[in-house]
């Protein structure tokens, strides 16, 4: 059986996994590279610089970096103000804090004005062992309620680096689920992220997995694992949650009799809801199994323990595929 990709340390930092390539701090290093090309890039954090991988940018451009301290509402307001003077403001904190605490600021100070604020939100979903205070298990549900907001859930380091650049050219406010630390490389170098487009990473098979974010790596691992048992599985990766690629998803759905939707998020209000809603609206009724989290608060513990306990680990995928 393949190793489970991307285990984490305490602060959502992914650690190297045997047999899997990784890329250290891809967000901050790519942002620093982008800032060398564009002087309109600024960076902000709310006392989460170290834990969001933005320090490579700060070290290279200290004059363009603002740490507002533990004040997430102010983080978003200051970012909006910078954007309204022509800057592209990249800001970082944890997903839980920017969504639950600063929601109104994202909606009104940023999205309503289509301000060029790019929020890189650390530890999305169940990526931290500190319990519910640090686990953003409903962030996709919350954020997709905001009009004129783009939402992206990258799956690996290759995609994350491309997203860092792509969002600079997306007009308006963008919420990105951030992977940090030694972020696994799941995609090959030929992959091209296209905003708003779902992408077939593994075609064919009799069962289709539709996944987003960190769970896409696991879907690919599961597909490889069951292939050795003679079961073929297709994988559609949906990095952009909003705007949702309804046509791309329905096209994939049409090729399969049975589907699995996987996300590092509650099974309600995120990708599972979007996929089933799109299917229902199009009059497509097929069996769909959702891999994701229950509507609950979750306890503390190691990443491996939590994923196994709450059903995000590789065996959960295998069970869903094998039926």
């Amino acid at each position, binding site marked *: 059986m393949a190793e489970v990709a991307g285990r984490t340390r305490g602060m959502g930092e992914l650690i190297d996994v045997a047999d899997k390539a990784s890329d250290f701090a891809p967000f901050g290093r790519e942002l620093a590279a982008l800032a060398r090309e564009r002087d309109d890039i600024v960076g902000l954090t709310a006392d989460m610089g170290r834990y969001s991988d933005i320090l490579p940018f700060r070290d290279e451009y200290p004059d363009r970096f603002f740490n*507002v*301290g533990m004040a997430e*509402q*102010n983080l978003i*307001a*200051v970012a909006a103000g*910078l954007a309204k003077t022509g800057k592209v403001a990249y800001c970082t904190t944890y997903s839980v804090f920017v969504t639950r605490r600063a929601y109104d600021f994202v909606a*009104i*100070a940023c999205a309503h*004005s289509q301000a060029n604020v790019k929020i890189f939100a650390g530890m999305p979903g169940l990526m931290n062992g500190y319990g519910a205070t640090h686990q953003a298990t409903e962030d996709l549900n919350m954020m997709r309620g905001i009009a004129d907001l783009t939402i992206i859930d990258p799956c690996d380091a290759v995609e994350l680096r491309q997203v860092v650049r792509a969002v600079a050219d997306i007009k308006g406010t963008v919420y990105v689920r951030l992977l940090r630390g030694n972020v696994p490389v799941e995609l090959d170098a030929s992959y091209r992220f296209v905003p708003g487009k779902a992408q077939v990473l593994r075609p064919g098979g009799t069962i289709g997995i539709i996944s987003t974010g960190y769970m896409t790596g696991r879907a690919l691992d599961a597909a490889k694992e069951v292939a050795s048992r003679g079961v073929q599985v297709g994988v559609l990766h949906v990095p952009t949650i909003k705007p949702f690629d309804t046509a791309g998803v329905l096209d994939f759905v049409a090729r399969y009799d049975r589907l699995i939707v996987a996300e590092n998020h509650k099974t309600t209000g995120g990708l599972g809801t979007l996929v089933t809603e799109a299917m229902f609206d199009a009059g497509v009724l097929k069996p769909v199994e959702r891999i994701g989290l229950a509507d609950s608060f979750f306890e503390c513990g190691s990443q491996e323990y939590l994923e196994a306990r709450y059903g995000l680990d590789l065996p959960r995928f295998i069970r869903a595929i094998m039926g």
Partner: protein
Amino acid sequence: MMTASGVTTTDIDMLRLRAYDLRVAMLEMAAGKGEGYVAQGLGMADCLAALYFHEMHHDPANPDWDDRDRFLLSTGHYSIAMYAVLAEAGYLDRAEFPSYGLNGSRLPMSTFDDLPGLEIVGGSLGQGLGQAVGMALGLRLDGREARVFCEVSDGELQEGSTWEALMSGATFGCDNLVALFDCNGVQADGPVHVQLEPVLDKISAFGWSSIEINGNDMEALVRALEVSRVRDGKPKAIIMRTQPGSGVPTLEKRERAHFVRITDEEWQVMRDELEAGRPGATRG
């Protein structure tokens, strides 16, 4: 008589007349709908006249001019005052006044930022000052001389985010930022009852160069704005004690001044009261 920067008594009189014109415009606008946030607007008329016709560098023909001074109205429901000053300055046609607060109007009761001259969506209270800090940082990064002026109400001093922004303004040394605190003593549920005072001491303690004035005293406003020009590494705060309904005695005396509904007959009474207090100077 002249101030340090050469403002004469005649200039002050002219600014008073400008403020009077803004008050006339506000009554005209509110009479169309029969209601509105008139009292706060009247209280802010002097400040807005001093900013738009004396202190700020701006160009109504080019509202997006990169080097303009910015004015942020954080308290979005003071919109009536904003529309009055934008029209008086030439950003807006007075012919739109009767549409204030009506369906489909460009002049909603709480401001959006799609009208030329408006910098932010106001109204979700507590969001203005943080954005002003961001704008001040952005202008400084670009090496521009432009400054940022941000109105904040005393009600908004009850939002934690306002104090977060106060900390940031001082932390980042935003000496191109002037916060104008409109302390008029009223909010939605009545008189301000939350323990805010001493506002001046608190804001000073947060690292801002602060001054407290009568916000309906034009000479004091002009002087305070002049003092705010100094670039000493500290953000500036002007705590303005304003009178809701200023210039219209009927409204000054009204206890429930947050949102007023007024009968057709009363509008004429208020116009007459305002006109009776018209400043004596003639327009230059």
